[in-house]
């Protein structure tokens, strides 16, 4: 019993102690320095944590996000493709390359379409 769950207990105790000590440390040390609004705010990777709930932002971002997903995810598809079919290249090399090429070609058509339709022109 102690052998199996003992380590878990130690884990819980250590993590609790660590969290509590950090909390107390910040309580104690935080009073020493100067405190002002931004410094007291929660740190959110550089974003300002307090703002209006639904800020206005350019609709272009939405388009960029969508294009990013479209043209970025293909890499996630290509890596397993390259690894999985490595053993079959000798036998079915043409088909394997052909399938991926046709996929990329269709994607390329989409890319050309997006450019021609002005999806990447941010100035206007």
């Amino acid at each position, binding site marked *: 019993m102690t052998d199996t769950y003992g380590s878990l207990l130690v884990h819980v105790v250590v993590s609790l102690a660590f969290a509590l000590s950090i909390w107390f440390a910040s309580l104690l040390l935080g009073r020493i320095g100067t405190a002002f609004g931004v410094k007291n705010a929660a740190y959110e990777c550089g974003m300002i944590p307090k703002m209006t709930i639904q800020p206005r932002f350019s609709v272009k971002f939405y388009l960029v996000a969508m294009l990013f997903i479209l043209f970025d995810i293909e890499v996630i598809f290509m890596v397993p493709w390259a690894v999985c079919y490595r053993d079959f290249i000798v036998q079915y090399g043409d088909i394997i390359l052909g399938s991926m090429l046709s996929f990329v070609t269709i994607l390329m058509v989409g890319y050309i*379409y997006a450019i021609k339709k002005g999806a990447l022109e941010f100035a206007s």
Partner: protein
Amino acid sequence: MNPLFLEYTVVLLGIILLMVEAFLPDLDKKKIALAGIAGLFFVLFLTWMPLHSLSIESAPFYTTDPLALFFKRFMIVMTIITLWMSLDFIPVIQRGIPGERPGAGVGEFFILPIFACASLMWLVSAISFIMLFVSLECMTVVLYISISYLRKDPKTLEAGTKYLILSALTTGFLVYGITWIFGITGTTSIEHLADSIALLPPQSLTPLLFGVGLVLVAFCFKIAAFPFQFWLPDVYQGAPTPITAFLSIASKAAGFVLLLRFLEQLYLIPTLGKKVFAVTTLLAMMTLLFGNLAAMAQTNMKRLLAYSSIAHTGYVLMAVASIGAALALPAIGFYLVAYLAMTSLAFIVLLIVTETSGGNEIYCFQGLHERSPLLAAAMTVAMISLAGLPLSAGFFGKFFIFQVTFQQGHYGLLGVGTISVVAGIYYYLKVIKVMYWKQPSQGSAPITLSKLTTVLISLLIAVILILGIYPTPILMSLQ
């Protein structure tokens, strides 16, 4: 010719048109639609070319049996009709899209159905769950875009959102069901599903049934059978009319092909067959009753057609429940062809009347025979055929299905079917009454039709009347 070339040609056609649209923004959009129609006619011609046997890689996923070929032609014809009727829809598209240029977004409206057509052609050939799922999703994604195409119209947006959420939900059901079936049988093949099930120990049948149930839910959503039909009237009403026609005919027919391929395998196992038969019969009865009874109260033409499409799902489900009969498959094929002709005819008339009368309520059809005798005649033929009166394709469609049901001895189903036919006559003939016995509302002008539209309407009327006298060619191609 490699059979896969059919789909490749359709995809290529779509891509070429998309590039033309991108590089020549000032081109007359009608030309894109006409090029699409011409290209699809060429592919339709190609389907009669002798086909090679498949290469070893694609054979487990893809079949070119008569059923697949028949429905490939069906899908191509439906896409042609959709593009053809979209020609009259151009002003509405222009009004419905917030674009900088007047022609913005019109070209894509003609190109999207072509991509949907390619995925539907893959779908009817799918004999593996993987192939089925990928092509089904491919079609649905195109439909998401097409249904919510007229962005300025809140109703269209509502329709798009409803379809997106419910369709995504049923996709979840489908994948989960496929997972269960794969987990128990160890195969994703639909073609050899019965062989794999036959090897299973009896206690595995219960979890298998769970998976089958989930997959059935997804298919029933596609064909809009009774408990899964709630999305249909709202989506039909909101979607652009040509897309409504496409959704109501092509997507539904594809759903039936999937259902057929899937249930055919389950019927081969006697213990499963009985349970599945009970479910299909129940679905058919409820769909028939709900569709017909709800259609009676409709005052909006598009909603009427939506409920009528639910009712027709019920009739086809009657034949699906009788799948063991030799003639079940030709009966279903013939019914869907008749359904294609009459429903698209009704939608074309609806589209033009909506354009010229400013609404798609039934009262907008008042005195249509004075405004345009051809349109009124076309709607009459469509309604008579939908009601299943003799000398129309719809009559033989119902006749074959009732015959098959009778041969299999499903008398309860037959009784419900008969009641629904009688109920159907009431609301279909109501439209004819409005067109001929009511005066046109004030200020409504005579309707002039373009030549192309006249040709399409006349062709469809001819098909309905000819199939109502001589149904053999369709039956033979599926036997």
